[in-house]
């Protein structure tokens, strides 16, 4: 058995007993918390799984969803499929979605994406320096940035990101 397979089995074993717990806490209301003060976001430049560089500032002019996650985080995994469905609805609507992995490397994330395939960019914050600049307390945490580069909404904990009402709030930001 390969080392990567052993590692995947190890975290699956560790997290298996938590599945009933998660089922009992499945996200009910798909809320986005408005941030009235609209603070400017801290800029960053990170590479994705393909080695391409992404600077947040470069996406100015359109709403950007920024998700902080990790492969070992059950609610992060739980929301990824709905995030992919959301991305399929948003990608041609002038909205960007960036998922920033906290503290892991390509060797960990790559096999993970076989089980959780996504087509939006997965950025690598290997040493956790970018996440430290954001008001993140736990994973997953997600921020919606308005076209002027300010935080418009945040969501702590997993969501069903393909919820139409939730997506409508993101799309409305294009008009601002």
């Amino acid at each position, binding site marked *: 058995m390969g080392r990567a397979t052993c590692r995947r089995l190890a975290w699956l074993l560790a997290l298996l007993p938590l599945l009933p717990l998660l089922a*009992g806490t499945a996200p009910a209301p798909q809320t986005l918390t408005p941030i009235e003060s609209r603070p400017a976001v801290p800029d960053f430049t990170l590479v994705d799984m393909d080695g391409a560089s992404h600077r947040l500032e470069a996406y100015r002019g359109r709403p950007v969803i920024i998700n902080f996650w990790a492969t*070992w985080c059950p609610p992060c995994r739980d929301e990824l499929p709905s995030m992919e469905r959301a991305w399929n609805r948003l990608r041609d609507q002038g909205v960007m979605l960036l998922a920033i992995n906290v503290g892991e490397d390509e060797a960990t994330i790559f096999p993970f994406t076989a089980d959780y395939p996504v087509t939006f960019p997965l950025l690598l914050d290997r040493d956790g320096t970018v996440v430290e600049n954001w008001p993140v307390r736990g994973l997953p945490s997600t921020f919606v940035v308005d076209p002027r580069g300010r935080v418009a909404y945040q969501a*702590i904990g997993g969501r069903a990101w393909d919820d139409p009402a939730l997506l409508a709030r993101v799309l409305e930001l294009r008009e601002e």
Partner: protein
Amino acid sequence: MARPDRGAARGLALWLATVGSAAAEVARSSDAATGLVTWAWHDGASRITLAQLLPDQVRAFFQGRGFSADQSERVAAGCVFQLVIRNGAAADAAMTVELPVWRVERAGGDVGSPRLAAAWEAEWARLGVASGPRVAFRWALFPARQRFAPGDWNMGMLTLDLAHGTTFDLHAAWHAGSQVRSVRFRDLACAEDR
């Protein structure tokens, strides 16, 4: 068991003296396959859940994140729960949780508080643990302080300096809007090492 500092303990005593206990009951359930026990409190909207974690689960998790066997044993030798907190309240009723004021009470009156990320971070720094595992550890633990807007929730590990199998009460308190609320989880038990 970590002891609250003197100032925090005095503030906690004053604070808890003014706190009204949340009326809802704590439900205890046990997984038929693993025997692991979960305690859950909810008031129809918000929910706090504590689930036992086996020491082997803790070892596997942290060794999978890059900790050595000796380092992961420092966590697994204690008492670890999976803590989930959800704010299901109506709009504008934020829930603010501060773990430093949570109180752990053992039979005989010994009182302490959870062991938080800052204490662990100091230990990992002293032991020269690499950055990668330390980043994972920091985010795997439930944060010491967190504000939950309606619909927000989080899950993370809660570590206590208690031996496997120890029973204790946990006095959890939080701000819900302008109110201070609390619940006493009675007879919680750390998982056995099996």
